[in-house]
């Protein structure tokens, strides 16, 4: 009986708890949200930074790019990716100046250009989201910028401030944010990079550090603490030589030399506006004291959405910004967009959804099942669920499984602007630049070429990526200017062109190169010792065994032995940074859609400890071409130079070119078709759902099945019956059975 009682408890709890849940019992969202125009999404990693000066990960960008508005954005539909204005009136053309300050023509030689200037004019009348930092009283005095500490101690979230306010976006706000990149209390990941370009940023950083040290010392003395606090530095009082406000709506940025990619940086949150009031508001003592009332948690922006619920452990909610300026769905797109229905919303005001709900899902199983139940509008496909979602035909074509098709789910694919590569360390005498003489350089190059042929990335994609990827032909991924889709796109060092398609060269070709490299049959021709190479990787444990075994097999194809040195991410990173590796596997995702952002990974001067040329590849001709190419406008001349660079890189083979991953995303039938965008992350304003259809489908897919509960209960009762009967019999049994003498 007690056991039965124990088993009944959960059943009773379920029955009682679910009695008020309506038609659907497993809905994870509040009942009052049913049928509303809400877009449901998810996040996996807990976001660390929402401060635009610090945030630099795609997970964080998925949220903050809906809130902050840099001056520019990428056009939603046009391809190749094209910059468009966001808050700016137009994308400016730079003006160039020489050392003496004389203006140069657009076509001036990059070597003569000492400075470039961008005048950015923003639109009038753009307003910030409602926020307490901007609240003012009837006399125009700020309500919450000089609060006593005791009052702050009674506030725990932004909603504890009863009043909110707004104001117009002005050029000063953009300048304020650029100065924040040098703020000593923030560690902006691009500060170092930007000091190479923005005139005066380094000097500003040094000055701010000195002043901050003094302020912190004063703070610690005043409050008798070792805590540095966050004393406010009013950045308006500091001059930044290269950034000036020209008028209320215009600001000028002066950068060193010519750097056309700078405009792409201006489309990232690093260059979004921050009102000084927000900085002042959050820096008041007590705001961050156990409350997380900081700009890093509660952003302030002019974008289509504003953060209304901040719970990085569980849920983030974005509500439509009531003050969002007029912005419409694009009226023109790329060829074919109209036919695919992507222009159906042309001219309509965005955002389309009144709310976006991001729920944290750390594990792939609940995430996938909730998508199938209709509780997420879109989802990716994890490897575990791939076979359930997608079928790959004999010739490699992919299609949704009948189950997915029956549900009306759509498959959207896109090749990411990412490259994963296996790099050779050029400091290594065997696979790198050789021992200094030309002969050993040539031998090492042939060895790299042989390995490039032997490592079959098509097979890797097929086995480990479920076919989701494109084998690399060079450093550039598809979608980036310079990548050739045509015949010139294949890598003749690794592939033969057969029937107009690239076909990986046979292993015999790799063996021939290996012999020419001085290792016939995988043995050193002088010593006779087998060639042993070392691959550093972070893949460890049983899950990685198949992949590591695959690597060994690829090397074994040409009789080369592979030793795998598996280590944790920290040690791996350190080894790569210090150059203590022979071969390693890495990846790079585009910051912006420009070939410079990939070619710089092979630029010789970047082969330092802190540089991004991790292979430490150096070729003077490649470097010379890179220096020309990086400052050019995209066009036929640039393409010619890129072709030359790619040819050099293919010959030198500092990487085996690996692969570019392909994303497979699923969208439910109630989500309007959208265009995948692997660069911009501010596209949720264009996302549109049909909440009525979604509700209908959810009801249809999630009808509760109650009978198994009854069955379980009956089974428990039945299993307990013999025990109960035995108990009764024993209780009724006489201590001395009848007939037995006392």
């Amino acid at each position: 009986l007690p056991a039965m009682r124990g088993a009944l408890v959960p059943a009773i709890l379920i029955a009682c708890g679910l009695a008020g849940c309506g038609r659907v019992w497993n809905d994870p969202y509040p009942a009052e949200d049913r049928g509303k125009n809400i877009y449901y999404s998810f996040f996996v990693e807990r976001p660390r930074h929402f401060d635009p000066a610090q945030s630099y990960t795609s997970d964080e960008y998925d949220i903050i790019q809906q809130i902050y508005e840099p001056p520019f954005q990428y056009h939603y539909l046009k391809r190749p990716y094209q910059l468009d204005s966001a808050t700016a009136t137009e994308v400016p053309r730079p003006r160039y100046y020489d050392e003496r300050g004389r203006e140069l023509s657009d076509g001036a030689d990059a070597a003569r250009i000492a400075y470039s200037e961008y005048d950015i004019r923003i639109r009038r009348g753009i307003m910030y989201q409602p926020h307490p930092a901007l609240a003012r009283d009837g006399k125009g005095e700020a309500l919450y910028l000089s609060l006593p500490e005791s009052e702050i101690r009674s506030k725990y979230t932004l909603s504890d401030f009863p009043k909110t306010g707004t104001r117009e976006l002005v050029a000063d706000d953009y300048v304020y944010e650029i100065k924040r990149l040098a703020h000593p209390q923030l560690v902006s990941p691009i500060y170092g990079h930007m000091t190479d370009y923005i005139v005066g940023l380094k000097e500003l950083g040094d000055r701010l550090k000195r002043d901050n040290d003094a302020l912190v010392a004063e703070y610690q003395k005043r409050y008798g603490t070792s805590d540095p606090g966050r004393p406010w530095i009013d950045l308006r009082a500091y001059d930044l030589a290269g950034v000036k406000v020209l008028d209320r709506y215009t600001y000028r940025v002066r950068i060193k030399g010519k750097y056309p990619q700078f405009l792409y940086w201006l489309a990232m949150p690093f260059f979004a506006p921050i009102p000084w009031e927000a900085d002042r508001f959050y820096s008041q003592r007590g705001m961050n004291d156990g409350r997380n009332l900081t700009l890093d948690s509660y952003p302030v922006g002019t974008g289509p959405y504003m953060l209304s619920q901040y719970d990085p452990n569980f849920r983030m909610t974005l509500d439509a910004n009531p003050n969002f300026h007029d912005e419409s769905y694009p009226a023109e797109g790329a060829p074919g967009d109209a036919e695919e229905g992507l222009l159906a919303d042309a001219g309509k005001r965005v955002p389309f959804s009144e709310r976006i709900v991001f729920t944290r899902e750390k594990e792939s199983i609940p995430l996938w099942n909730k998508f199938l139940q209709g509780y997420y509008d879109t989802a990716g496909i994890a490897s575990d669920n791939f076979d359930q979602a997608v079928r790959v035909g004999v010739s490699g074509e992919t299609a949704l499984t009948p189950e997915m098709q029956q549900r009306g789910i759509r498959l959207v694919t896109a090749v990411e602007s990412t490259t994963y590569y296996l790099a050779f360390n050029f400091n290594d005498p065997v696979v790198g630049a050789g021992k200094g003489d030309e002969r050993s350089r040539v031998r090492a190059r042939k060895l790299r070429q042989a390995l490039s042929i032997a490592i079959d990335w098509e097979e890797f994609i097929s086995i480990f990526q479920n076919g989701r990827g494109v084998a690399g032909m060079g450093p550039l991924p598809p979608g980036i200017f310079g990548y050739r889709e045509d015949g010139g796109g294949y890598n003749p060092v690794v592939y033969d062109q057969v029937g107009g398609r690239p076909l990986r060269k046979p292993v015999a070709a790799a063996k021939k190169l290996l012999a020419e490299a001085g290792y016939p049959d995988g043995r050193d021709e002088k010593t006779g010792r087998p060639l042993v190479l070392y691959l550093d990787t972070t893949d460890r444990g049983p899950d990685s065994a198949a992949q590591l075994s695959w690597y060994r097999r690829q090397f074994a194809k040409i009789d080369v032995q592979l030793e795998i040195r598996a280590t944790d991410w920290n040690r791996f990173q350190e080894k790569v940074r210090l150059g203590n590796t022979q071969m390693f596997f890495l990846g790079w995702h585009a910051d912006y859609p420009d070939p410079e952002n990939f070619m710089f990974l092979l630029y010789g001067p970047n082969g330092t400890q802190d540089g991004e040329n991790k292979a430490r590849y150096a070729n003077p001709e490649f470097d010379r071409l890179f220096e020309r190419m990086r400052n050019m406008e995209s066009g036929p001349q640039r393409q010619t130079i890129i072709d030359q660079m790619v040819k050099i890189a293919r010959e030198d083979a500092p990487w085996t070119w690996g692969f570019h991953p392909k994303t497979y995303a699923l969208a439910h039938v109630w989500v309007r078709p959208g265009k995948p965008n692997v660069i911009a992350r501010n596209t949720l304003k264009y996302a549109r759902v049909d909440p009525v259809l979604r509700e209908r489908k959810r009801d249809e897919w999630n009808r509760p099945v109650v009978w198994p509960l009854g069955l379980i209960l009956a089974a428990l009762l039945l299993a307990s019956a013999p025990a109960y009967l035995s108990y009764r019999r024993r209780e009724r049994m006489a201590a001395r059975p009848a007939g037995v003498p006392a």
Partner: protein
Amino acid sequence: VIAYIVRRLLYVVPILILVNLFTFWLFFSVNTPDDMARLQLGVRRVSQEAVDKWKAEHGYDKPMLYNERVQGLQRLTDTIFFEKSVRLFVFDFGNADDGRSIRNAILTRMWPSLAVQLPVFVVGLAVYISFALLMAFFRATYIDFWGVILCVAMMSISSLFYIIIGQYLLSKVWNLVPISGYSSGPDSLKFLVLPVVIGALSGVGSGSRWYRTIFLEEMGKDYVRTARAKGLSETTVMFRHVLRNGMIPILTGAVVVIPTLFMGALILESFFGIPGLGSYTIDAIQAQDFSIVRSMVFLGAVLYIAGLLMTDISYTLVDPRVRLE
């Protein structure tokens, strides 16, 4: 009793210092402050200057345990270990390495953890005791035999299996409860049912077997024979005598875990999307956030010691023969 408690509390200080030192040594033997900085700053375009700036900003620019550059006591106090540890003793956990308050996280996350763990504990205890009593009552019968086999089988199955099967059946196939998620207030019931059932069920095997052993040991004692000889019914013997006396070892195991219920469950919380402290700890380990890891280890140690103290006190309540001296 008060003197005993004070003495026990004084023992706590060196234990906590050792726990802290051990955590510190363990953490920094696999991570360096540079690793932590690089992980926080991201892997792209990170210069050594930015790493140094991050370390200075977060107090990781000092020597670990001994500072040779200063004089006197400062050699020990002007170190990462001292600066990061001493505040813990007044429960000032400071900020995580991403700048967010740990105290705030603990205060908000302990409730979801408790919302799952407390019912798991209560329901679990009731089920384990009931099942153990049942097996003990029918000792040496087929019920006991199959009960023990069931317990061993349930002990052999990973808790992850219970989670996956539970989510598959109750949430996916039968659509009875949400597969994951959390909500505060009365709405939380639908999210808690499944994790509580699974949390309790996954412990049935080990819990019931342990309690069965305790009850069988009690049942072999003289006072039970005397009770039976007096003519008491088996039910009275079991519930009035065996259960009450068996409660002493049960208390040892149960009371000690009560304070640690706040700390949550690592896997359960991750799979059910419950924003509790277990999930927080896992995230911190993955993010190499030393500030959170040391705070959680410290808190866990304090709660465990508190549990042990509570166990000692509870002994005196259930067994008059035990005195705190």
